């Protein structure tokens, strides 16, 4: 299998007046062709910023502060803005969280799709139109020819997200970053969209990074799972292993708070406490204020340890046996 994207020691920091916010701090992961990586974590853990870092859209005061983003061996952190632009929306695409906000309210759907086609090809207007229509049909929008003439406000949230997905898939990207694209939608539509994106991604061998704060959404979808906490990946490994035998106390807590995984009548287990502020986060395990297993040693930086065969965990007292 070929590796589509490899992120190594990525750091994305926001240099605010109040101090440095280390939104992404030493994050590494890999996604292979046709594979689905679930990036999971609570609100504010740095999932979106990770996605924007890959696609090169981190807004000031934020910027990449280190690490490399290897897309097919090419470091995206080092290429020019114009080179990055030609990859964006073309080889690397992204779908956003809130479908109500992702389409420009004053431009018709055809305008917004045709420009996306023409940004990366020399297609004529009518060719671009045909491609747009077919793309809308593919994501299950009825009478796409008519819908192309509509404005975003004439669509429901689910339909808008389909349009955004159609736009993201226009150029059959090698990598699709889906940033919680179903969070704002009904449960039934969530499931539909999830299944459709997965189908389209598998058909074209697209590597998929599915960002979510809800483990249950991706438990059946992801090949691998990376759990993020306070800007770091605290556990990463094969999806079924991580879900069945979590090694990091935080992952364990996340799984406990998923309703379907609790026995009937049993109280939902919540992780106590709140996500710490990322502003001037000191050394030591960021989870220690909420962790039941915390000891004095957790005041120091937990090392990355390997759980055979290939799971990574960042904890002094993991809940599974580590390599000797």
């Amino acid at each position, binding site marked *: 299998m070929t590796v589509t994207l490899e992120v190594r020691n990525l750091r994305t920091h926001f240099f605010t007046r109040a101090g440095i916010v280390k939104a992404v701090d030493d994050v590494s992961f890999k996604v292979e062709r046709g594979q689905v990586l679930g990036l999971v974590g609570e609100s504010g853990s740095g999932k979106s910023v990770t996605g924007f870092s890959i*696609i090169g*859209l981190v*807004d000031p005061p934020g910027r990449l502060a280190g690490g490399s983003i290897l897309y097919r061996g090419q470091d995206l952190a080092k290429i020019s803005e114009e080179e990055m*632009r*030609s*990859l*964006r*929306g*073309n080889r690397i*695409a*992204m779908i*956003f969280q*809130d479908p109500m*906000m*992702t*389409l*420009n*309210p*004053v*431009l*018709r759907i055809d*305008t*917004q799709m045709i*420009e*996306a086609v023409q*940004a*990366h090809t020399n297609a004529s207007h009518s060719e671009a139109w045909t491609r747009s229509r077919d793309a809308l049909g593919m994501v299950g929008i009825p009478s796409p020819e008519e819908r192309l003439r509509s*404005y975003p*406000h*004439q669509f429901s949230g689910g339909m808008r997200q389909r349009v*955004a997905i159609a*736009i993201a898939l226009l150029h059959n990207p090698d990598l699709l970053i889906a940033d919680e694209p179903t969070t704002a939608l009904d449960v039934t539509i969530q499931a539909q969209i999830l299944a459709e994106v997965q189908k389209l991604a598998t058909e074209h061998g697209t590597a998929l990074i599915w960002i979510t704060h809800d483990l249950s959404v991706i438990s059946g979808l992801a090949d691998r799972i990376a759990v993020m906490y306070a800007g770091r990946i605290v556990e990463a490994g094969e999806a079924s292993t991580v879900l069945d035998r979590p090694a990091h106390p935080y992952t364990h807590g996340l799984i406990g708070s998923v309703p379907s995984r609790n026995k009937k009548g049993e109280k939902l287990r919540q992780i106590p406490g709140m996500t710490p502020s990322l502003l001037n986060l000191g050394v030591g395990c960021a989870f220690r204020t909420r962790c039941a297993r915390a000891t004095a040693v957790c005041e120091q930086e937990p090392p990355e340890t390997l759980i055979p065969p290939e799971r990574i965990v960042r904890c002094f007292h993991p809940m599974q046996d580590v390599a000797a």
Partner: protein
Amino acid sequence: MLTWIVRRLFQAFFVVVAMTVIVFVGVHVIGNPVDILISPEADQAERARIIAEMGLDQPLWKQYFFFVNDVLHGNMGRSFVFNEPALKLIGSRMPATLELAVTAVLFSICFGVPLGLYAGLKPDSVAGRAIMAGSILGFSLPSFWVGLMLIMTFAVHLGVLPSTGRGETAAMFGIQWSFLTWDGLRHMFMPALNLSLFNISLVLRLTRAGVRETLPMDYIKFARAKGLTPRRVILVHVLKNIMIPVVTVVGLELGSTIAFAVVTESVFAWPGMGKLIIDSINVLDRPVIVAYLMMIVLLFITINLVVDIIYTILDPRVRLETKA
């Protein structure tokens, strides 16, 4: 849509009626035009003849009744001073004011939008801050003073631009226009700039505010994620959103620009309606005042109507509501 227009016209009619009543009473209260218009040497018989000719011997309500009767027969009254139809008098001065006001409004767009865009895109740059500081001056400096300063600088010291009059004119549709000749344009530049200063500041600040508001929107980020060039993102996605308030304000300002051209016309001796109305007020030339104000009211109403229509074209969300 149609009922809406009819309702607007109906409102307009009542405004005009109210206007004529107010002006009739107002002019009557201020003073008697007879004292100003008839030379002191005229004898009693001569005086009585002229007063009767103007209809000023009748009670006010009767005068008003005759006036309305005349208007219904397409006759807006004759100027006491020039003994010409008031409408014709205003009409002969209107092109000068119209071209001045339209040029001023064009100036406000041509200078205001680019400056505002720049200040919005680079809010922290020295130039961006300078533009904003300059716009405060544009708001607060009195128009006549700026006009005089312009004359001092460009006409007196540098001697590059003429300071008074319309210059050479050329005919189009049987009307004399300054903008058709080079000399006319040179004459128009300073008064138009003077008249547009307030509007430039207004448009500039609106544009900047719009840019600041639009840039952080998700749909702008999504447009960039599609791989569009920065140029297209700004000129299409950002600008189209900003044009809605800018067009509204510029359109509405056209009316007041025409109405308040009085000061500029006086400073630059520009022979437009503004100058005519000032002179007419001085001699209480009631037919001219009434005709002028009626025309201004109609103008305002027309402009408001047109702006509302353009607004619905620009903003698809409004269009839907008026249809439904």
